[in-house]
């Protein structure tokens, strides 16, 4: 039956269904276009957890910080949002510059991360940071090849593999996964051709 209520509900639902992907697209496009690119070092992961479905599960090295004085973090609960200012080390890799509850002043290069495990004292203890980017989706044929390469390269040295992440105003979006300076997809394609 065509009732006004039904038509209004349909219009609202359609708008929401169309807006949900659009809002994701716009937010991520903005970060990818305007955000500054950082190279995040990855580190070896548990081989059994390296792949779920068709994405590379990434684990990032050096995403820890000293809890600054005055920041109150609950001991028991993890998953609190903190603002993590990102900088670069002398080799051009991303490092944590500061951690705070509020967005850092004077920079747009920060990512909202969740707190993970912590150890040490209430202040000056170490806190583990969980970034919002941890999966790199890939083509189903390239994914198993990337898994092998990812494990092999990570085992050799941690600097051979990194993720390029665009960072802007609290958001971080993975642009690419690099194997020895080459995009992962190209790297495994070339390796496949060589074989």
């Amino acid at each position, binding site marked *: 039956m065509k009732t006004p209520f039904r038509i209004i509900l349909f219009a609202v639902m*359609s708008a929401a269904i169309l807006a949900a*992907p659009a809002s*994701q697209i716009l937010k991520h496009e903005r970060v990818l276009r305007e955000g500054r690119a950082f190279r995040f070092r990855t580190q070896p992961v548990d081989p059994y957890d390296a792949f779920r479905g068709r994405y590379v599960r990434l684990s990032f090295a050096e995403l820890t910080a000293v809890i600054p004085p005055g920041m109150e973090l609950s001991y028991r609960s993890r998953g609190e949002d903190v603002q993590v200012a990102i900088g670069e080390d002398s080799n051009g890799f991303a490092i944590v510059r500061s951690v705070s509850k509020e967005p850092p002043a004077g920079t747009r290069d920060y990512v909202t991360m969740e707190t993970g495990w912590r150890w040490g004292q209430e202040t000056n203890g170490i806190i583990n940071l969980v970034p919002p980017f941890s999966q790199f989706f890939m083509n189903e044929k390239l994914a198993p090849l990337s898994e092998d390469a990812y494990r092999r390269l990570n085992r050799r040295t941690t600097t051979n593999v990194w993720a390029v992440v665009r960072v802007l105003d609290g958001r971080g979006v993975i642009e690419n996964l690099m194997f020895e300076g080459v995009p992962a997809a190209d790297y495994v394609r070339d390796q496949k051709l060589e074989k």
Partner: protein
Amino acid sequence: MNGSEHRRLMDEIGIWLQEGLISGEQAARLRERYPVPASKNWALVVTSVFGSLLVGLGIILLLAHNWDDLTRPVRAGLAYLPVLAALGLCAWYVFSDRSSTGWREGLGTFLGLAVGASLALVAQTYQVGGTFRALTLAWMLLILPSVYILDAVMPALIYLAGITGWAVGQSSCQDNPTGYWLLLGGLIPFLIWTRRRDPGGIRNGWLMWGTALSMIGGVATCMHTHEPVLWFALYAAFFAVCLLAGELWDRPGVSLWGRPLTLLGGFGMGVMVFLYSFLWFWNDMNRDIQYYGWRRTEWQEATDIAQVAVFMVLYVVLLVLAFRRLKGWPFRLAACFPLVAVVLVALNQVLEGHAIIPAVLMNGYAFVLGLLVVAEGVRETRLDNMNAGLVLLAALLISRFFDADMSILGRGLAFIGLGICFLAANAIMIRRRRAL
């Protein structure tokens, strides 16, 4: 009257006519009195639903392949294709004033899956972080209105599966899953609406089964403790609520398939009665609460207690509403199970170290309940009741026979005493029949 009932009546009329019980004219009048019930074309509904299901799932797989040769904007545009197609068809259906169950269910299925495919492709294209359950939650909230707009059961079933999966995901990651009940609340008006229009129908049956099974998942995931008193109280109240709600809600006289709440409540209660007939359950109940609850956070403790309290209150309200309608002692005794549970748990706490007493009383309750169910089944020649009672009695007797926790002498005497009671009842019945 459904199709099979009508066919049976027509067959009977034919037999009465052959046997001369009624005349040809009377047979014709009876046939006129009971015309063929207007039935939906279920073949159309089933093919429509399965067709939409397969196309929707195929699209999800096609997009999951990850077409990395295509540019980002093209992939983002592709994400909209299935959802635009589904919304376009839904708009055509809503504005054309059609009313076809096949179309409604098929479109609901397709839209439900298309929204999921669209969200997943955007997440894949933009490497959106976050968990699958976060995506599921957004997906389910977006498709909920389609249940009401299309008046379709299939998106409701997708929604129930989705929110149950979300609650399981939340619980397994130590996050709060109690939002499940709020999400389920979004479907309650549709449940009432469907029940009112078609109480014994197939759509109502599917919807009620989906809801009942989802609720089991909800109760299990929202309970964080293995602390036995709370656990026992919650499940006793939950299954009793199902049984009583079934009595108030399910249409009487329909098959068991059409009465999922009654069936689920009765089955769950039977399993619980059987489990708690074992002595070790009662011994475990007296352990230090810290032994079971040490890992819970404050909000987990609070939601556990709140959940038990809500189900207990709901149970009392439904018991008051339904008690007069509960026909027969077996049903009344079964409906009192949470009260029996509360009394026995309190007794177990008072008589610390003598768990055998509540265990024996629970065995007595289970035995009487099984016996009454069998007796009613025999009296009303209802095989399903009789078999259910017999299964409970058989399980109880076999488990007690092999039960190493209880005294051999006590069990031997109890078995002989009960056997003599059965034989005496048998002798009395034979004597009465002869006297007639």
